[in-house]
Structures are given as structure tokens and as C-alpha cells.
């Protein structure tokens, strides 16, 4: 790859689409929100490159949360689901070889974490994390159980909708993204202070997974479809043409 042209820069981020830093309805943001403007600059090789993780790091059960922490012969408790979809860029091109990591509460809404003291019990057969790498068509899938909603200390009676956390790596570090996925029909979506940090209903809607009966495995697990979009990238070819004009 030596001497081939450098990759093109990424499309500018639309910060009106993402949540702003300061969102007083989500109280913890108040002391953790930077107040000065971000300083922008054209991507350099630092931001255009990023780590890659081959399919060889992925263990056989890494994408099956029903089994990857379960005792032999057991599986996690709760409604069994499959979450699947594509990772695309802003031009709808599939993004292969993306490391996708996910974590979630158990069916009762309890995390396996020392900071979580919710009275719902831990499930001895559920750890709550998994990972996979997208294939050549940008597809990913994993098995898990439907996470439960849970109360959290913000207002006295705030509850999180059922959700799964996602971390995605693109091909350049400028595409790095952490977000959360929700489930179609959950009445908590409209009243969640964390979801409502996102300014538009249209943006929130892109985080809501749809029930997908066509990929449901009969008598086993229902499927939910969730696509992710990472930042698009300018074509180097086009830039070269511009330079020659």
C-alpha cells in the first residue's frame, strides 16, 4: 500500500443531529459538559487511520450473550432475541470489518457491575457483553435476551427504556461512535431524559430497532433489525481530479 494516495477526509459531522454536551435534563451532563467550542481542522493521517480488529479475535460465543457467561448446560433467562443489521456509511455503502461491541442489563434490568445496586436479581448465567466484526457486506448479528427497563437516579422516578449499548469502530478514528439501541413500541422512549438529549424525533427514531419477523427463528428467538451509519468519506480520486483542473 506504500505510495498509494492517502484516503479522503470524512464528511463534516452534523452536531445539530447529535445530542449537545450540556443537557440539564440529564443531570450528570451539567458538570461534565465542555463549555468552549470544539476546534475543527481537516482530518490528518491521525484521524484518517484507526485500529482494525480481525475476525480472528472473535471467539465462538462472543456474539451469543445467552451462552457466553452461562454455566454448562444453562442459558440466560429472558425473552430470546437476535439483533442484526448493517453498518453503512453516509452514502449507504456497507462498512466491512467493523468491530461492534455491545453491553446491556439482564432481563430484570440489572447490570453485572459493582456500581449497580438495583434490587432486581443478577442472573448467574448472564454476563451482559458481546462483540462481533461486520462481514464483507457490512452485516452483523448476535443473540441475546431482551434487557429489562430499570430506574436510575436522575429525577426521583426516571426509568431507562429497555436498551442495548453499542460501540463501533470505523476505518478511521474520526468515525468512532458509542450509542444505544432501543426497542419499537417502548413507551419509555418518549420520556427518557437520556434519549431526549437528542434534539430531533427523527434522530431518536433511528435508534429504535424494529421487530423483524422474517429473520425470527421459529420456536426459538425473535429478531430485531438495527442499522448503524458511520461518517462517509470523500473519494481521493475525485480530489485528485479537482487538483488537476
Amino acid at each position, binding site marked *: *500500500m506504500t*505510495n498509494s494516495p*492517502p*484516503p479522503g477526509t470524512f*464528511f463534516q459531522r452534523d*452536531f445539530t*443531529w*447529535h*445530542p*449537545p*454536551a450540556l443537557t440539564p435534563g*440529564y443531570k450528570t*451532563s451539567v*458538570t*461534565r*459538559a*465542555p*463549555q*468552549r467550542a470544539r*476546534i475543527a*481542522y481537516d482530518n*490528518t*493521517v*491521525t484521524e484518517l*487511520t*484507526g*485500529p482494525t480488529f480481525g475476525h480472528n479475535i472473535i*471467539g465462538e460465543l*462472543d456474539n451469543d450473550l445467552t451462552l457466553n*457467561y452461562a454455566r454448562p448446560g444453562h442459558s440466560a433467562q429472558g425473552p430470546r432475541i437476535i439483533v442484526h443489521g448493517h453498518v453503512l*456509511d*453516509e*452514502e*449507504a455503502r456497507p462498512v466491512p470489518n467493523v468491530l461492534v461491541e455491545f*453491553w446491556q442489563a439482564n432481563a430484570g434490568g440489572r*447490570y*453485572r*457491575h*459493582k*456500581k449497580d445496586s438495583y434490587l432486581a436479581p443478577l442472573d448467574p448465567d448472564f*454476563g*451482559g*457483553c458481546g462483540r462481533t466484526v461486520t462481514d464483507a457486506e457490512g452485516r452483523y448479528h448476535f443473540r441475546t435476551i431482551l434487557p429489562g427497563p430499570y430506574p436510575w437516579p436522575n429525577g426521583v422516578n426516571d426509568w431507562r427504556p429497555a436498551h442495548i*449499548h453499542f*460501540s463501533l469502530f470505523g*476505518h*478511521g*478514528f*474520526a468515525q468512532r*461512535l*458509542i450509542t444505544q439501541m432501543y426497542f419499537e413500541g417502548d413507551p419509555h422512549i418518549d420520556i427518557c431524559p437520556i*434519549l431526549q*438529549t437528542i434534539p430531533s424525533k427523527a*434522530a431518536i427514531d*433511528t*435508534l429504535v430497532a424494529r421487530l423483524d419477523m422474517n429473520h425470527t427463528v421459529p420456536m426459538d428467538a425473535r429478531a430485531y433489525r438495527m442499522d*448503524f*451509519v*458511520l*461518517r462517509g468519506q470523500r473519494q481521493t480520486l475525485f480530489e485528485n481530479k479537482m487538483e488537476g483542473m
Partner: protein
Amino acid sequence: MRYLKETPSQTAGPYVHIGCVPSFAGLEGMFGGRDLGDKMITGDAKGERITLTGHVHDGTGMAIRDALLEIWQADAAGLYNSPQERRGAADPHFTGWGRQPTDGETGRYRFETIKPGPVPWSDGRMQAPHILVWIVARGINMGLATRVYFDDEQEANAADPLLARIEHRDRIPTLLARREGDTYHFDIHLQGPDETIFFDI
């Protein structure tokens, strides 16, 4: 022309450790018992071994104890270990990518790495050696990107094209790691008079 919109960001939340550093979170044996990014030097890597350490402070000055940091940097020769690196092959014994939580008691983070070489700016001028840092935590709605520069690289820093365009010169020290032996100290301030410069990358 119709484009898709980038998936909106959401906070990594207080339980980010379960997904990103499960062994640290106590999920014994998960993913072979090793957290991804815990080791950047995988063999006889070239370059100077350094420790990068510090705290992440909130607006009250308190060190936050539930953050997760990732760093991305070039090797000693200024090459990135990435398929997108088109200038040559990076050191095979150095990943360039690290991920560490802040300590649950003290709030300190710590990376064992090497000092990066300089890499070019988009017009070919050289940038001073630097490390890209990305911070996520409960209360941070979208990952924050900043850069570590080194306080013993005064000449290179003075010629750095990015540092040169920062209007408020008194903020540049927020990007400088302070050398003490083989350790560089770099504290991040999310807000307040010493607020770290964050970048739109």
C-alpha cells in the same frame, strides 16, 4: 443527493466497563480474560517506552472515576498500524491503540506506550508528535476528542500546524503533557478555567 444521517451518539453510561473492559468490570474469563487495548506493546517495539497518566476532572474539579479513555497514535517512526496507512508498514510490535478505564477509587488512568514519531499535516508539513485521546463516560453525550502533545518537544510544538491555528494561546498548555522521567502527566478538564481544548475531528 440524499445521504444517510450518521447514527446519533448516546452516552456510554456508567456501565461502559461491562462492554469495553469486561475483565476490569469483573466478568472473569470474558473474551479470553483479556481486555482489548490493554496492551499496546506486543513485542520488541522500537522507540522510547513511556507512561501516559493523569486524571479526568469534572467542572467541580473532582476526578471522575467512571470514564473510559482510548488513545490512538503513530509508532516511533511516525506510522500508524492501520490498513488506512498508505505511507509504509508500521512497527508490527506496536498496536498504536490503547483503551483504559479511570481507576474506580482514585480516578487515575494509565497507558504504557511508546513516544510517537511525527506525522504529516494534510499539506505535507510535519506535525509535532502527538497522541489522539478519546474520552467517554456517564454524563458525556458524545465522545470527546483531544490531543496530547509533549512539553519537551518545544521546537516541534512551535512549528505544529494545528497548535498554530489556536487563537487563544493561553489554552495551549491544556494540550501539553508534562514530562517527569519516563512518565508524562496529562490531566483533562471537562470544563472550568482550565478546560482542555477538545477537537471536532
